[in-house]
């Protein structure tokens, strides 16, 4: 393997490694715009020019491959001066509209200017005028004047989404990103071009002007939009509810995971976060006929437990592949092992959807595989048995985790079944027909409000973190289960999700040898992959 010395630090790297990657390995900062580890090398921004011994010209670190004995210098006077001037070139025609630019605060022009620029402007000429506020498609806006023409977005649509909507029109300083005539940027992955745009040229229609990025906090999570389990970061704000009509989740961003989603996520997942802050069930409810009243959790558990106990085996439980492994495990112990309920069904709350050969899976649940590992399978045949049992009066009550059975089963049948039941418990985060007809409604947390693990379709067990606290009266399902159990004289001694997981590693084969704190891939922030110089959002927390 060739050995290279970068700024005095020696490292051995595999044949074909680019200097820019080798520099990263020894923590040397070679700034760049156009380079992206997930895309082909364009070599056009020229920010990463470095000095290579025995080569008269500066070389771009993103293209140059390491050769044995190569000596690279990234911080010589010549390199620093050149870098400063390249930045100056990039800013010659830039509108410098940071105060009204959505990218401000996470803009690589700003960051690099502070780090590598700091020159006085000497541009007294007029700037080239280009198109502004161009809608490229349903999700992305373009400001061509802010664009530095790094071509990352073009390469993304060519190489990753393979949809080829974008190109660069015109020449010289009149170059502009454009969609091809008659096309719009409308593919299942369009949002990624906003992530990889290092400047304010491409902004997300969904996020635009919602909140300045320095008010955002970030936490690692796992997308629950399908069984792929893309690693994401949840960007949120709790301190400025007036900025976004009380919404807490501001946007989702993909987080690098070499084995799952690399740097990307699909638009369906990216924009599928609205339900965390809309149409939520705000309090425990008790319903008798048309009379609905808010009651305390204590009263709710007492009354529900009384009905559940009375029903004995004459009840059915509807679990959901949206639940975490830990919750499914507790549900299994409680309902199957302790209460010996025979009618436990796994019902997906969502119909199968769009899939492709990249990240989108037809199964829109994050944990179908985990449910199977714990012993629950989606089985429509068995559901027919449930309907039969209802008709025969063998079911007194049902416990439903999140699904809208009116939608997932036959709506007409459900309307007949519901009045025959003595009671029904709905445990869910958002209102639907079930929450509007169940006799007990237990408000639960969404996945950003709790922690746990999902097993993705490939069998990878991934941890998602609690991003922020649940709404005041909402509880995580695992907490609801532990407490409900208490009223049913079943005592779990787990205090944390980790305790449940720990137990699963000895009880469920699929979890054997796993360690909870090792599941968290932790600090791999997409931007720390893409630009080592930019602090992860967590670091802004201190400023707040």
């Amino acid at each position: 393997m060739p050995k290279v010395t970068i700024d005095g630090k020696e490292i051995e790297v595999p044949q074909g490694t680019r200097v820019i990657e080798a520099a990263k390995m020894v923590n040397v900062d070679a700034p760049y715009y156009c380079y992206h580890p997930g895309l082909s090398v364009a070599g056009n921004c020229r920010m990463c020019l470095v000095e290579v011994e025995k080569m008269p010209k500066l070389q771009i670190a993103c293209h140059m491959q390491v050769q044995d004995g190569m000596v690279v210098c990234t911080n010589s006077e010549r390199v620093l001066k050149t870098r400063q001037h390249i930045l100056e070139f990039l800013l010659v025609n830039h509108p410098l509209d940071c105060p009204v630019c959505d990218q401000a605060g996470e803009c690589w022009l700003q960051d690099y200017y502070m780090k590598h620029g700091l020159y006085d402007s000497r541009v007294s000429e007029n700037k080239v005028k280009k198109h502004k506020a161009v809608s490229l498609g349903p999700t992305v806006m373009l400001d061509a004047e802010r664009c530095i023409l790094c071509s990352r977005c073009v390469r993304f649509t060519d190489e990753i989404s393979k949809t080829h909507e974008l190109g660069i029109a015109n020449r010289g300083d009149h170059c502009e990103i454009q969609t091809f005539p008659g096309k719009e940027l409308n593919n299942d992955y369009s949002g990624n071009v906003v992530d990889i745009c290092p400047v304010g040229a491409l902004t997300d229609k969904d996020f635009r002007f919602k909140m300045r990025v320095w008010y955002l906090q970030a936490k690692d999570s796992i997308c629950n939009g399908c069984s792929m389990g893309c690693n994401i970061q949840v960007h949120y704000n709790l301190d400025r509810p007036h900025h976004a009509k009380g919404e807490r989740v501001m946007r989702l961003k993909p987080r690098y995971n070499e084995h799952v989603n690399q740097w990307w996520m699909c638009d369906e997942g990216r924009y599928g976060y609205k339900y965390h802050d809309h149409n939520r069930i705000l309090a425990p409810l008790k319903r008798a006929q048309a009379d609905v009243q808010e009651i305390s959790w204590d009263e709710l558990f007492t009354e529900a437990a009384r009905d559940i106990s009375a029903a004995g085996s004459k009840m059915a439980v509807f679990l959901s592949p949206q639940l975490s492994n830990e919750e499914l495990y507790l549900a299994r112990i409680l309902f199957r092992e302790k209460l010996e309920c025979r009618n436990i069904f796994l019902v997906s709350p969502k119909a199968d959807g769009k899939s492709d050969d990249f990240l989108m899976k037809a199964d829109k649940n994050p944990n179908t595989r985990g449910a199977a590992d714990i012993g629950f399978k989606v089985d429509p045949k068995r559901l027919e048995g449930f309907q039969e049992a209802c008709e025969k009066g063998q079911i007194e009550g049902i416990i439903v985790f999140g699904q809208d059975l009116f939608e997932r089963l036959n709506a007409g049948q459900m309307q007949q079944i519901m009045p025959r039941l003595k009671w029904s418990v709905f445990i869910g985060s958002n209102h639907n027909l079930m929450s509007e007809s169940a006799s007990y409604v237990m408000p639960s947390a969404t996945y950003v409000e709790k922690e746990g693990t999902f097993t993705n379709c490939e069998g990878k067990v991934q941890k998602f973190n609690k991003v922020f606290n649940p709404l005041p009266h909402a509880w995580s399902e695992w907490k609801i289960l532990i407490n409900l159990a208490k009223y049913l004289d079943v005592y779990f001694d787990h205090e944390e999700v980790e305790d449940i997981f720990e137990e699963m590693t000895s009880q469920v084969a699929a979890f054997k040898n796993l360690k909870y704190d090792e599941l968290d891939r932790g600090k791999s922030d997409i931007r720390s992959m893409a630009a080592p110089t930019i602090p992860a959002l967590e670091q802004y927390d201190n400023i707040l």
Partner: protein
Amino acid sequence: MEKLISKYFVPGKTFSIDEYIADGGYQAIRTVFEKLDSASLIETVKKSNLRGLGGAGFPCGIKWSFVPQNTGKPVYLVVNADEGEPGTFKDKYIISHVPHLLIEGIMIAAFANNVHKAFIYIRGEYTRPYQALVKAVNEAYEKGYLGKNIFGKGFGLDIVVHRGAGAYICGEETGLLESLEGKQGRPRLKPPFPAVVGLFGCPTVINNVETLSYLPFIINRGAEWFASLGSDKNGGMRLFSVSGHVKKPGVYELPLGIPLREIIYTYAGGIRDDRRLKAVVPGGLSAAILKADEIDVGMDFDQLRAKQTMAGSAGVIVMDEKTCMVRSLLVTMRFYAHESCGQCSPCREGTGWVHRILERIASGGGKSKDLENLSDICSFMGGTTICALADGAAMPLRSYPQKFKEEFEYFIRHGKSMIEQGEEVSA
């Protein structure tokens, strides 16, 4: 001085295939087929010291020897007939007057490099040369000089003529390849070099029209003879395109290494109206400018480089004493700003910025810091990009204000040109 290529430059005449054959044409390729193999042919070209006459001056035989023959892919020959360097019009002469000389040269190069398909990328504006070329290619096919099994010797060659759309950058060899492949003309990152990964991903030889057109002479009269015509390591003759303020502008075929003074005063008849010479661009617009007292330089690749300029495409642009250097630099920089492909930031933003600064100076708004800034911008525009366009822009941008400092300072201070009754090119 003996004329080689230029003996065919008869005004208004295009040599047909029969006329060309009657003049001894297509003898060289027969000699090649009968007496030479690829290796000995490459050796001959190496010995002739034939340099790449498109501008870079890379030794032709050495270039050919880089082409890998064992990749399992076809090797292509691409003929650069884009001739976009301002001040250069020699290839147009060759193609217009004697296209068969080029075709014969292509056949020789194809044989040397085991090529069976050649592409001629001709500048879009060259309408009549294009017609002459297509006619000649058709003639050659009709006579069995192109196609399969030429002269019954088992060697086949097809030629495709492709018209560009007028972009200067498509004369840069990898920009040309991109354009030929149907993409935007944007130079490629190197390595890999076209010799290894060129047109459609295959090994590719790229030669200029003029370079190829000298091959038949080298075969017919010997490599040593050709080498002896020029100066040290600069074999043969080349076609100098002389334009600007001379009495007899035109294409002159002269040995490499001939003094610039001789070209201007002996061959081009001196300066119009017998004015004083002010400056000369020796090798196409991208070459650094020379002052009147620097014209005793020998016009070959190595001697001009020693003078911090370049032989380039041998486009000699002569400017007399009535030329305003500020305005002529403005016109020059407008060209680069217009032709930059826009890929690399220093070139994309730099060429336009420089042009706007010069526009401001030329309209009387110059500032005392301008020259310093221009020189600084220039230092970081050159040598920092994928291709040589920005280097080409940097050469005049550095040399004009350096060599005519007084004139630039005057313009900036007074808001008008030092040249009172300027008859300079209009800006």
